[in-house]
């Protein structure tokens, strides 16, 4: 591969990672702070909530809710449950 093309390719790779770093460091925090991403994101930031789980066993909050459901059900032996805030 010619040297020029190699250099261009490496520059493209660096640019790609640069954009990712920009997303992390500036764009997403700015969006979250200024409310452009909606109140769900605002709430996630406020409660430090992970919304990235792909499947239910990955999300700790899911386990918390389900454990509470089970405990309440066992305690009351009926469908009334309490979800902790």
């Amino acid at each position, binding site marked *: 591969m010619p040297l020029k093309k*190699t250099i261009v*390719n*490496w520059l*493209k*790779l660096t640019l*790609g*990672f640069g954009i*990712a770093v920009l*997303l*992390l*460091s500036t764009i*997403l*925090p700015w969006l*979250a702070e200024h409310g452009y*991403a*909606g*109140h*769900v*994101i605002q*709430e*996630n*930031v406020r*409660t*430090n*909530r*992970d*919304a*990235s*789980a*792909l*499947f*239910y*066993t*990955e*999300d700790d*909050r*899911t*386990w918390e*809710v*389900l*454990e509470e*459901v*089970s405990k309440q*059900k066992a305690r009351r032996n*009926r*469908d*009334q*449950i*309490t*979800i*902790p*805030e």
Partner: protein
Amino acid sequence: MKKQSWTDLIKLEDWWAIWIGFILLVAVFTGVVDSVPKMPGWAWGDFAALSSGVNILSLIGLLVGLCVAFSLAIAVMGNDKVVAFIPGFFALFLLSCLTYIFADEATVKHYGISYAFWAVGIGLLIANTVGVPAWLKPAIKTEFYIKTGLVIMGSGILFGNILKFGAYGLAIAWGVTPIVIVFMWIFGTKVLKMTNKPLVIIIATATSVCGVSAAIAAAAASKAKKEDLTIAIGMTLIFTVGMMIGMPILVANMGLSPLIGGAWLGGTIDATGAVGAAGAVLGPEAEAAAIIVKMIQNILIGVVAFCIAVYWVTRVEENESGKRPGFGEIWNRFPKFILGFIAASLFASFVMIPLLGDDTVKGMLKQTKTIRGWLFTMAFISIGLDSNFKDMATQMRGGKPMVLYLVGQTFNIVLTLFIAWLVLSGILFPLPPSLVS
């Protein structure tokens, strides 16, 4: 027809996925492995948390353990050279660490931009700029990592959860899902006349069951190309973030009850983390309803993968070959790892939970999910490394995959709302007890 042989058990990748998956599961369930390392969570600017939270020795242990397991399988199968596999595997693992560094940043997590996005993105970026070095290619075993990860994922699907949450959630989650899959399949193949049938079924499954996880299972069951999975994952991730933000606003403006609204979110938003996040904004009752419906829907993933695999070998491949296969041929073509996936689910639900108790098993599942996460990350990076933009652009030509997703998701949203309203409004059935006191 290829003759069946006992040596298939050590010569086929599907069986090795089951063996490695179960060895890892047994290692966790017996306590041999009690902590699987993961990259630490951190926030931009707090780089000390990133560096101090990494347990290098544990990571090396995990790397060596996985490398030994896959190298052994490759050596026994005899199709590739182990010496060529190992350096690439080390590099793939390092790229996985990089993926988790991006994915575990706090703000990224709040936005629901998961590791799948970063892994495929990093792979695509490398493949389409500097290219994949020759020494890395032997480690790109996408299907092998996916199948092994899926077998381990099976252990997280606990049948007991269906019994806990009753008929209301079951009606919403299991009533809508098959209808949406069949609708999207017919719409994609008959109306849009898409010839890439694996892509149709992957998009249909991702839309109707649980996004990326379901897409992976459907892709493996239908023997799809990597580009197909990349397209489906890309669309799913983008729309999941959009729906996580937009759906709660819609629920609030429509004046739905938290129960119906939560169930609607649970039945339509793909990723579970996003379901919970969207539900939480509407309050604890909506959050619980959303998670419960999603939980029950997630259980379908094994059933759907099994049905797709059977349908593929008996109908789709039959039509392509023009011959009806016999039982031997069906068995021959059937993706065996799905049996491991279902066996792992039954093993966790009906052996480990009665033996060790709910809480202990759930604690162990946190470890198995971490192993699966590493395997899926390596699979997603491999997908990115093996895909190129030109092939993906060809698949997207005419916008048919996007039309299929949009029409299917709209149908899913409308139907789920209708069923949730029917089941939870008190018209047909007595109103369920409130989820919160």
